[in-house]
């Protein structure tokens, strides 16, 4: 097999300067050697991950690792093209790695079936670039904070570029993050606000939409009637039960429109996904990886959003690095609060506030612990604070440190009274 023949097109581009390359870029075999020896980590082997693995292998990378904890489901087959009907139930990372290795000769793909949190800094330190195709904000925030924590100013090798892609229906985005140097996932958190949750009192007492009836069946009726079974959104019998409970409640309130499909969508928080959008976003991220690894063209600085509902629309811009970013900045982030809100309500609201999105926060000021979930004695000791108003616990403008079991770092906020 002739490398020159096989990689003809790629090598040509790597062997000639272009008008947008840096003046000191050296085309030719050194660049090609750098490309082929760069070790890349892919996080996620789903809709984006399958595409990313294919793209990296056909961009000349030879040493690729992939992490994914999931197994293959039938609903993946409309886009995750490395999987077949017979693969349902097998781990995504292993099947994807084996497929691409078999198809593209000379590439080594090492799968890891598990969580990114199972791996430590030593593991992440071995890679040159990390590329994410995830559907979870939480996992993105974790890897972002980890990579930022790893940066040692004395050691340029400790700075691992993070390329992140995400899609929803016909929309998506690709972004390049240079930990500590450019805007990070956490700086941009409020650009990806969670959908507001329906208030519990609506679900419990005044449903108006079919979704409210489904939430009731899922959150309240299940707890009431089947609390000994752990609800599993992949168990068709469980979904079916919730569907029928929701349907009955909807009839009682004369609400139309509860369907099985909607029930699944609500309880699993399903995001529509298609092959074409994944292809666009995955290839956009891998194109940036190729440019960063070789210097053959300038890389994205630092965000490209894409929307395909009406023609082909992209918007490329530089998201700002925030000095008060809780992860890469050194100032506490300002948060406007109502001083008459209780600590309990405040804690509850952090799950939904776009700039926080913390589901199980504990918090303290410099002097005292406001609320601590663990250990149980401390929880019991701080629980009475939940009923107190914020103005009784903190000064206007005081800084608090918030921790959450999903993250290894503390988030600092400065509470400013409205």
């Amino acid at each position, binding site marked *: 097999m002739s490398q020159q023949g096989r990689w003809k097109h790629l090598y040509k581009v790597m062997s000639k300067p*272009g008008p*947008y390359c840096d003046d000191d870029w050296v085309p030719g075999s050194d660049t090609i050697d750098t490309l082929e020896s760069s070790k890349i980590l892919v996080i996620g082997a789903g809709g984006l991950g399958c*595409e990313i693995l294919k793209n990296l292998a056909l961009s000349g990378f030879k040493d690729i690792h992939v992490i994914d904890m999931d197994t293959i489901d039938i609903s993946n087959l409309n886009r995750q093209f490395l999987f077949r009907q017979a693969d349902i139930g097998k781990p995504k990372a292993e099947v994807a790695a084996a497929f691409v290795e078999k198809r593209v000769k000379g590439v080594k793909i090492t799968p890891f079936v598990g969580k990114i949190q199972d791996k430590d800094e030593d593991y992440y330190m071995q890679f040159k670039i990390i590329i994410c195709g995830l559907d979870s904000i939480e996992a993105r925030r974790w890897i972002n904070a980890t990579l930022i924590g790893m940066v040692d100013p004395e050691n340029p090798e400790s700075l691992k570029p993070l390329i992140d892609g995400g899609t929803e229906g016909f929309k998506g985005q690709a972004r390049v993050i240079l930990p500590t140097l450019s805007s990070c996932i956490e700086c941009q958190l409020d650009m990806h606000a969670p959908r507001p949750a329906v208030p519990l009192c609506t679900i419990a007492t005044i449903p*108006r939409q079919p979704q409210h009836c489904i939430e009731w069946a899922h959150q309240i009726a299940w707890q009431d009637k089947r609390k000994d079974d752990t609800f599993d959104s992949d168990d068709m019998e469980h979904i079916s039960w919730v569907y029928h409970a929701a349907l009955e409640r909807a009839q009682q309130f004369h609400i139309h429109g509860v369907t099985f499909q909607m029930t699944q969508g609500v309880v699993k928080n399903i995001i529509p996904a298609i092959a074409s959008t994944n292809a666009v976003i995955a290839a956009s991220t891998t*194109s940036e990886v190729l440019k960063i690894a070789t210097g053959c*063209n300038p890389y994205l600085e630092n965000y490209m959003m894409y929307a395909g509902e009406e023609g082909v629309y992209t918007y490329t811009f530089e998201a700002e690095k925030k000095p008060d970013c809780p992860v890469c900045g050194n100032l506490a982030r300002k948060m406007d609060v109502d001083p008459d809100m209780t600590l309990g309500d405040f804690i509850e609201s952090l799950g939904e506030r776009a700039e926080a999105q913390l589901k199980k926060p504990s918090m303290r000021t410099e002097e005292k612990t406001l609320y601590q979930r663990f250990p149980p004695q401390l929880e019991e000791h701080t629980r009475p604070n939940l009923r107190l108003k914020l103005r009784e616990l903190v000064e206007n403008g005081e800084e608090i440190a918030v921790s959450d079991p999903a993250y290894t770092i503390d988030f600092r906020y400065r509470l400013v009274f409205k």
Partner: protein
Amino acid sequence: MTESFPAALTGPTSKERKYDRQLRLWAATGQQALEDSRVLLVNSDGPLGANSTGVSGVVGVEALKNLVLPGIGGFTIVDPATVTESDLGVNFFLEEESLGKSRAEETCRLLRELNPDVQGYYYSKHITELLHDPDFLPRHKLVIITGPTNRSSLGSLTQQAQRLGIPVLYVHSVGFYSTFSLQLDAEFPIVETHPDPETTQDLRLLNPWPELADAATAFGDLTAMDDHKHGHVPYILLLLHFLEQWKQSHGGNPPSSYKEKTEFREFVRSNARTDNPEGGEENFDEAVAAVLKTISPFSLRSSTREIFEMEQCKQLTPQSADFWVIASAINTFYNTHGVLPLPGSLPDMKAQSADYVALQNIYKSKARRDVEEVTSTIRQLESQLGQATPQILEREIEVFCKNAAHIKVIHGRAVPQISSDSDLTTLKAIRNQLNMEDSLISVFIATQVLDAVVDEIQSSGQQEAQLSVDDEALWTSHTERILALLSRDQPVPLDVDVRGAIANAIMELRRAEGGELHNISSLTGGLVAQEALKVLTRQYVPLDNTCVFDGARSRSEMYRL
């Protein structure tokens, strides 16, 4: 009771499960349209020059991948090339064993593996041979052509497709650049454009029909209500109520200017109760937030007005497509009532269940009556047009009425080219773009030069087989020729910066010597498939008509050329 729910699985079919994530975007009707479609990919048409077997065609195969996965009915690959070593470094749908075999056959085989529901066909021939069979092209609902391809094949293919009303996508992916153009019918109507739900609310607060107006007065005296009731009046009824009060003190006129609307907003806000335990009322907060968005008289969007004024809408014939018959009936409705049929959907809002459902029913039944009125106009039109039995399905009329405010007609254009017989509109649009700073139109021009270079190589025949796609003289002469075409009849020659931008685009393009980079082809295959899906499902809004992606600078632009 809930315990007695049947444990039996009444879930979706395995097909619905497989396609679940896309059915949430285009529903069963869109899926059916895809399954009824066969797509033709013309993936190469002869060598690009010395030592070349032709376009590697990765972008075309990647586009098909994204159509096979969601389950189009079938595809046909036309590609006379045989698989070479360099194909294996860039095309994922070929394997070691494919070397030396027909590329059409091998890519077809490996694409079919992706979805057993999809039929795949292949021809290891030139497209011109196949076009001799008049039945060949009509089997397809869409054609994707991978460029560069020579002028004569491209011309006969796009013209035949245009006569048959088959949309065409002409695609280039070269190095870090890609461009593609979509050729559609002269009128390509879309009903289900899927606008942002935020923009589609039509609540008719300034011109409520009697049942809605009655609902607002039926609530009675707000001030006499207890806190619970007061805090659960749906905001739509609050706004209607306060609008009446406002009108009484403003000579019968609703707030119209921005200043008046903000005054009205404060007036609504001032009526909220703050002495309750919550210190405010959610329904009033919703009402306040909705003032600027919803207190506006109905106005017809200009795109809809244009459709009503089109000849096809005004002059129906027995051959008129359903779209025009329904559009004409809706135009009659608009002329009678000054509004479009009510879409009938109601946003969620703070309210008691029964009050919300009652209000929702007022909107729904008005929408139903509007559909009935439009339907009866359509039945009259059908009989005037000589149709004995109703032709247009009620479901189709309903969907149209619901989307009436956002229907769209794209005026399709031929695949744009820069040549001596170019359309003047195309040349003008390109010249306008050249004046924009950082425009990517220079990339489109560079691919046009590539097309011309390849056309010369291919039409020069065997004796010139030594010519290379990287031949300096060919590039220089065609660049100058195309620049001359662009500045023809212009008072001033092309500006130095413009020439510089074009020279840069050509330099970047030539790095690849006509070859593809997998990433750029995969990305472009995604964009092209996206357009194909929109055209085939007739949902969402397709490209009109040319897109350029610049992978060197990670951005794209759209032009109507």
